[in-house]
């Protein structure tokens, strides 16, 4: 697959603060790429450099094989959703989207065609003529996302796009993005606090203190950094002695016995070796929360 974003040895310091400290990564065409990290980890700084809002101190950034030094050539290919809305509060939803779309050189009929596409999918018809400031938080976020997509970019950059969204709207937004990825090969670069969003990504980069602490597919990261768990609901009590002898960590309560393994192979071997003593069970892979905690020593939920 082609790389749509290629970052090499990127650095950005604000005085003594190393906001981005020598990071490198690539985003492939059609990929959902997630940045995971606490506030101040360097996610937004990286995104702001990529879209030309901030200048890098050193390193190389290429988007669609063009250096970001030529950012004006790249911008038509980008759609960006910032953490806070940057649309005009006093203008209607339609006016906001119309005036922004015209900056991409869209013809009016093309704009209306695109607008209908997004309006149908995100149910925007009833709010189209409302002033932006009168919308609810969820509605505003939907319009921010449509603003980023109205010109049908190749790459969508989402900086905490679904923070504060109700679950229904979050589902609708992701359904739309998935459709665009599937039909039009949209590549998505996402920063998020939400584990359920990160886990859906094709590739995840965990940032901590301006550096990349780990990167890989969600499954890779879980295999490398999270424990796997075997939950036993009905089991033979003799199993407990065997666990102690084998020095396997476990927690016992009234509902289940939870066993922790460093990797899936150990969990699988244990189940196969003891299947006669187990009547009801499930194996659960470690979660991204555990990955994040094990890599950074910090709990992601604390930053929410």
């Amino acid at each position, binding site marked *: 697959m082609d790389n749509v974003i290629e970052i090499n040895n990127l650095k950005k310091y604000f005085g003594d603060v190393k906001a981005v400290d020598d990071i490198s990564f690539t985003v492939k065409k059609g990929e959902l790429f997630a940045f995971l990290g606490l506030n101040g980890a360097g996610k937004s700084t990286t995104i702001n450099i990529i879209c030309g809002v901030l200048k890098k101190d050193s390193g190389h950034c290429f988007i669609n094989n063009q250096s970001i030094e030529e950012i004006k050539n790249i*911008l038509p290919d980008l759609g960006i959703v910032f953490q806070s809305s940057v649309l005009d509060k006093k203008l209607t939803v339609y006016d906001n989207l119309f*005036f922004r779309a015209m900056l991409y050189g869209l013809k009016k009929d093309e704009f209306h065609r695109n607008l209908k596409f997004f309006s149908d999918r995100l149910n925007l018809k009833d709010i189209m003529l409302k002033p932006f400031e009168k919308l609810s938080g969820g509605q505003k976020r939907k319009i921010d996302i449509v603003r980023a997509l109205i010109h049908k970019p190749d790459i969508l950059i989402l900086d905490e796009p679904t923070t504060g969204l109700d679950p229904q709207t979050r589902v609708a937004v992701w359904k739309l993005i998935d459709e665009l990825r599937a039909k039009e090969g949209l590549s998505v670069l996402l920063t998020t606090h939400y584990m359920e969003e990160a886990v859906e990504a094709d590739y995840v980069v965990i940032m901590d203190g301006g550096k990349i602490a780990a990167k890989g597919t969600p499954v890779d990261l879980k295999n490398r950094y999270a424990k796997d768990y075997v939950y036993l609901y009905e089991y033979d009590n003799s199993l407990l002695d065997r666990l102690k002898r084998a020095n396997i960590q476990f927690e016992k309560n009234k509902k289940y016995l939870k066993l922790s393994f460093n990797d899936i192979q150990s969990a699988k071997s244990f189940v196969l070796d003891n299947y006669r003593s187990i009547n009801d069970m499930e194996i659960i892979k470690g979660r991204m929360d555990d990955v994040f905690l094990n890599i950074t020593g910090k709990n992601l939920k604390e930053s929410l």
Partner: protein
Amino acid sequence: MKTEFLKLIFLTQRNIKLYFKNKFTFFVSLITPLILLLLFITFLKSTYENTILNIIGDFKLDNKIINAFTGGWLFSSVLSTSCITVSFCSGMMIYDKINKSDIDFMVSPVNNMTIKVAYVIANLLSTLIICAVLLTIGLIYLSIVGFYLSFADLLLILLNIILTSLFGTLIANIVWCFVNSEGGMSGICTLISAMYGFICGAYMPINVMGNTMKNVTAFLPGTYSTVLFRKFFLTGVLDEMANYLPQEMTDIIAENFDVSFTALNNELSVGLMFLIIFSCVAVAFVILLQISILNKNKHIEKSKPVELNK
């Protein structure tokens, strides 16, 4: 080139729409004309009538002429202040900075210069629209109380409105380049709205100010704009007065109400005053252009992520 021009048109439209949709900015920009109207209704009209009556002594003047004179004086004041105050308060550049919309434009494929020019054009057009409405109200009022303006006067009033508004717009955009907060914007708008009427001689004639203040006003381009408005609004009425009063008397009235104006002991012609304003416009344009070029990259550096991530 054609695409960039279309972007300029759409950005200008957006800026104008945004100004007229924002009731607060619209109201703030009309504060000075409203203050003037209030002052006129409460005491200025009678004060100026008394001044004229004191000057003419036993001579008789039709009320129509006096009303036309005070009305002309009011609307010359309203227009001279509005051209500046409206241009300051209708600038969308500062609102975009506060709302972070400037960052949205930064990540859109549009030239920095197109964005800046769109601010200036929209600013100018918004000011001209407001001034056109005020002029229309003024002309209707004068046609009711007494109309002594010639077609040439009207054309010169329009030219003065355009030049003064352009000057105000350019100065406002220069100032907004250095202001980033809502507090700064409100402070400057209020200061300009409150002060400009005094220093340009809109609230009271420059002639009644002390010598120091008179000399200071000679260095302010707004003074010449106000004097030009006075000339175009009031020369016709003064000519009519001359039919009933001795020339010396109309000269005194003209001098008292800034229709004839001496700057640093020199009487200036209409052409020279227009030239002064035009020169100031040219200088302001060059300064704004230089600032825009210098700020092109600085703005990117200033936008630290912490400001974005509210």
